[in-house]
C-alpha cells in the first residue's frame, strides 16, 4: 500500500516534470525579455582585457530550454552573417569555430551574451544597439546548441539547406571548457 502510494507519487512527479519540460520547450515568447536578461546585461567585461571568464554566476538562461528561441537564434545567425566568420554550421573560418569545446570567454550564457554585445578583440564586432537583448539571447541559445550544450529534445534539426551543414540535433555533446589561453593562439587551432 505504502509502496503503491510512493510509486504513484513518483509517477505523478515524473509526469508533471515531463509536462513542465514540454511546456518550456514549446513556449513561443514574443514580447517579454526574460527576467534573467536584465541581470546578465550587467555582466560587462572590459573590451581591453578579455582574460578568463567569470563563471561564478552560472546563470542557466530560460532560452536554453526553448526550442523556438534556439531556432530563432539559428535564423539570426544566418541573417546577421555570423556564418560569415564562424561558418555556416559553426565550423569556423575567419572566426573561431563554435562546435568544439574551446571557449575562449567561457560557455556560460552570460559570457556568450557579453561576447556578442560587447564584441571581442581580433575581429568580433560589438552588436550593442544593433540587436535587442531578446535577439542576443536567442543567439546565445543557438551558439550553445551548436556545441551541443542543450538537452536533446530542444535542439535544432536540419535546416532546409545543403546537407554539408550538419544538423545540431544529431551532433555529439561537447564538454565546455573555459580556456585560459591568450586570444592570439585561437586563430591557429
Amino acid at each position, binding site marked *: 500500500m505504502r509502496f503503491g502510494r510512493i510509486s504513484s507519487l513518483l509517477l505523478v512527479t515524473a509526469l508533471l516534470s515531463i509536462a513542465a519540460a514540454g511546456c518550456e520547450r514549446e513556449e*513561443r515568447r*514574443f*514580447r517579454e525579455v526574460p527576467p534573467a536578461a536584465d541581470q546578465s546585461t550587467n555582466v560587462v567585461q572590459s573590451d581591453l582585457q578579455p582574460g578568463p571568464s567569470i563563471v561564478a554566476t552560472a546563470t542557466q538562461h530560460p532560452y536554453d530550454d526553448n526550442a523556438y528561441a534556439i531556432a530563432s537564434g539559428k*535564423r539570426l545567425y544566418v*541573417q*546577421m552573417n555570423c556564418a560569415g566568420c564562424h561558418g555556416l554550421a559553426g565550423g569556423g573560418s575567419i572566426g573561431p569555430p563554435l562546435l568544439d569545446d574551446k571557449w575562449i570567454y567561457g560557455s556560460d550564457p552570460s559570457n556568450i551574451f557579453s561576447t556578442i554585445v560587447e564584441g571581442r578583440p581580433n575581429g568580433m564586432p560589438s552588436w550593442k*544597439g*544593433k*540587436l*535587442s537583448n*531578446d*535577439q542576443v539571447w536567442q543567439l546565445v541559445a543557438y551558439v550553445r546548441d551548436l556545441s551541443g550544450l542543450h538537452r536533446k529534445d530542444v535542439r535544432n534539426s536540419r535546416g*532546409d539547406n545543403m546537407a554539408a551543414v550538419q544538423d545540431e540535433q544529431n551532433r555529439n555533446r561537447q564538454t565546455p571548457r573555459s580556456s585560459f589561453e591568450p586570444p592570439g593562439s585561437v586563430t591557429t587551432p
Partner: protein
Amino acid sequence: MMLLQAPHYAQQSMIDPAGTKAGAINDFWHFLIVTASIVTAIVFITLFIALAKRRRPADPEAPGEQRSLTRWVTGSVAVTLVIIVVFLFMDFRLGRAIATPPQRTPLRVNVIGHQWWWEFQYPDSATPGNWISTANELHIPVGRPVILRMSARDVIHSFWVPNLSGKKDLIPGHDTETWIEADSAGIYRGQCAEFCGLQHAKMALLVIAEPERQFEQWALGARGAALAPADSTAKAGEQVFLTGGCSVCHAIGGTMAGGTVGPNLTHFGSRLTIAAASLPNTKGNLGGWIVDPQRIKPGSFMPPNALEPDQLEALLAYLEGLK
C-alpha cells in the same frame, strides 16, 4: 482605437472585380450560382412533396410504380450529367481564356514571399543595377498585363488579390508564374492565402493600379535613391537608423543601410501602409510599430526598439520624409 482604424481600401472581394481575370471568373460564378440554385430548388421541392404528400402509397413493389420511379431517377441522372458536361465545357473555355495574358507588352515583376511580408522587384533590363525593390505595395499600370514571377524564401505562400485574379502559390524550390491586369485605377487589397505560420493573418499587400503615365512617374521616382533628410531632426533620425539596429535588417538606397532581412525602405514615406498592409502609414502607427511591433504582429521578426523619445521622434521624421 485610432491604431486599428482601417482605410477604405481594406476591403477585398472576388465579386467586385476590377481585373480581366477576376471579371471572367465572376461571370462564370453568376452562371454557377444560378444553375446551382435552380437545381437545389428542384431537389428540395421534390423532397418536400415526397415527404408531405398524404395519399396512400402505391405498392412499392408493383411493376408500374417501380418503372415510373426508375424512369424518374434515370431522367434526373441524365439531366445532372448534361449540366455537368455544360459546366465542364464552360470551365475549360474559361480556363484556356485566362491561362495566358493578352498579347501586349507586359510588365514583369518578381514577387518574393517572406514570413510575413511581400517583396516586389521590378527588373530593369537596360540597367541591371537599377531595379526597383519595394515591399507590400505593388504598383501596376492600368490596362497592361503584369507577369508576376514568384518565389518563396522560407515557406509556402500564396499570392491573391481577389478583385484582380485568383491565387497562385509561391513554393520554395518551384518558381511559379501568374499574371494580373487591372481594368480601372484603384487600390486593391490582397492577402496571403496559404497558411504560412504565426502571422499568416497579417500578410497582406496592396496593388496600386495607376494610369500608365502616373505609373511611369512612380517608377522613375522609385528607381532613384532616397531623399536626403530635409531638416536637422530628420538628419538625426538618419543617424538613429544607421547606427541603431534598423540598418541591420533594412536597406535604404543611397545610404550605408543595406540589410536584406526586412523590407527595403528607400521610399518608405510614400507607402500607404505599414506592417504588410496591416496599418495605415501614419506617424502614430509607425511609432507604435517601431517601439513594440510584437503587440501588433506577435511573432513577427521585427524586434522591439527601446528608443529615447527624441530618438524616436527623429527617426519618425526621417522615415516619413523618405517619399
